[in-house]
């Protein structure tokens, strides 16, 4: 990987992002941090959707669980911060294991519907449990330890964690596990015939993905200091799905691009008009008609050499 031609430019980008907060207004730092959190979430979804071929329709649940876990721990108990950081992703992965275990027995659409129903159940419970979770008000004012509570510090914290997670995800996708996952995406029946326990493999992928979603949830709390039930509502899940689509779900970094575009659009279009969902809807339609492989997929197509038998680079 060190020898990959992307290594140099990536280091440069990382350094630029690192020193950026010193030069740009607070607001942009905040937006960038938000983009990082959302990118991590979108990347985690793409592990199972783009690379695993599963209809993970309610990924937001795991994000919300991670966020609520750390939110509740920090607000209601006096446990140290790092326990919250670890508990969040673990809870998310446990919920992922539970929900995933039921879902992998089904195919495609039924997988998705069961997940939506289980996720909505969790949403409904959290929504109404005022005494414990704050109900539809959410939990505002979560105390974040002073070392990462100023915006700049949380920015760096989030950026570093994001990069670590991305590196891990990259390694996983390039490993035999990742290759096999992609094979399952393309042809689960054939995989069964060559000795792969497809369900177990898919479940493992789900647990990994939900773990990362939990990390994203924790980072969200670090940034926003509060938790909302919207995180668990299916609309967010669908938005994450769209981010993957927008960026290109068969590519590695596509979801990052998708997340960046969505967050940027929502923020900047939102300044001019309240009707940014309208713009999003139109954008989506354009995407469906003209760019079905997503933005990144489109660029990859342009730059791929057009030889007779399409050849893949490494």
């Amino acid at each position: 990987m060190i020898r990959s031609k992307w290594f140099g430019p990536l280091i440069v980008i990382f350094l630029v992002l690192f020193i950026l907060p010193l030069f740009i207004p607070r607001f942009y730092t905040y937006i960038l941090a938000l983009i990082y959190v959302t990118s991590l979430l979108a990347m985690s979804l793409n592990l199972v959707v783009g690379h695993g071929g599963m209809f993970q329709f309610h990924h937001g649940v795991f994000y919300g669980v991670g966020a609520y876990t750390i939110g509740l721990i920090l607000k209601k108990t006096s446990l140290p911060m790092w326990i919250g950081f670890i508990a969040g992703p673990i809870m998310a992965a446990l919920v992922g294991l539970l929900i995933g275990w039921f879902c992998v027995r089904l195919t495609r659409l039924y997988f998705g519907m069961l997940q939506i129903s289980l996720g909505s159940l969790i949403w409904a419970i959290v929504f109404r449990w005022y005494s414990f979770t704050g109900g539809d008000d959410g939990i505002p004012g979560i105390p974040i330890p002073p070392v990462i509570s100023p915006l700049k510090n949380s920015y760096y914290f989030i950026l570093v964690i994001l990069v670590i997670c991305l590196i891990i995800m990259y390694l996983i996708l390039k490993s035999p596990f990742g290759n096999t996952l992609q094979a399952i995406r393309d042809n689960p029946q054939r995989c069964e015939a060559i000795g792969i326990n497809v369900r177990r493999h898919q479940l493992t992928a789900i647990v990994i993905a939900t773990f990362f979603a939990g990390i994203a949830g924790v980072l969200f709390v670090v940034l926003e200091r509060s938790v909302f039930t919207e995180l668990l509502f299916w609309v967010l899940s669908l938005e994450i799905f769209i981010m993957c689509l927008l960026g290109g779900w068969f590519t590695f970094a596509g979801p990052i691009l998708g997340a960046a575009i969505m967050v940027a659009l929502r923020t900047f279009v939102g300044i001019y008009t309240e009707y940014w969902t309208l713009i999003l809807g139109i954008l989506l339609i354009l995407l469906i008609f003209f760019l079905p492989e997503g933005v990144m997929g489109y660029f990859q197509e342009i730059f791929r050499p057009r030889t007779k038998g399409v050849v893949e680079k490494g």
Partner: protein
Amino acid sequence: MILFVVCGGLSFVLGVLRVPNIAHGSLYMIGAFATFTLAKLIGGSAGFWIALIVAPLLVALISLIAERGLFCHLYQREHLMLLLFTFAISLILGDLVKIVWGAEYRSVSPPALLKGSLSILGASLPRYNLFLIVIGPLVAIALWLFTNKTKIGKISRAAAVDREMVGVLGINVSWVFAIAFVIGCYLAGVGGALVAPTASIIIGMDHSLIIEAFLIVTIGGLGNMWGALVGSLIFGVTQSLGVLIWPQFAIVFPYVAVVIVLLLRPKGLLKSVW
């Protein structure tokens, strides 16, 4: 019952086009808002009845435009794309509603005929609810008649099972889809019109409805209209049960029911068209 009308339409579209129509919720919302405006314009009791007829037609018109203009070009694509398209439409329609009607909530009062309550078996039931209980099965019967007795209905059913064959038979499959889609959306509009007098008409209606509608359609069996009826009943009953037993968590009850059904019978209770 209202849920059934809406879900019946969703199920129908699902069965014929094999596409879960996320915009169904938005169309429902438009139906409600349109009813509000029409009722206000025309005034009085007659306003409601007229709105009940016209609003769904308006909704149907919108859906026709969306379908002919854009949707029909996508039929060859994967279902996921179609689903995302309906989501995009729902986003657009949702904001259009905000633009046209503003963000405050509205209400419509029931027409004079249906105001107040009737006393039946010692319990006092709102007349409007009785009206709904009557309308529900009427719609069900109408739908059943349509799909089983009329030519178009039968063709739709055939297209649901095997669209290529229907095409080979010389029937314009595209138009069949268009008609099916419009009818399904019409029902969404009817549902919206019917719900107008009973609940506050607000912006988030589409989101809360569509999730419930989807779950109902799934537990009933995708594409199966009787399934939609069964599903709506289960949903409604468990919700009422919830209100009686544990009001704070009333909305949790239907979700639990859905989860139980899906765990036991993932393809839904009744046979699905897929």
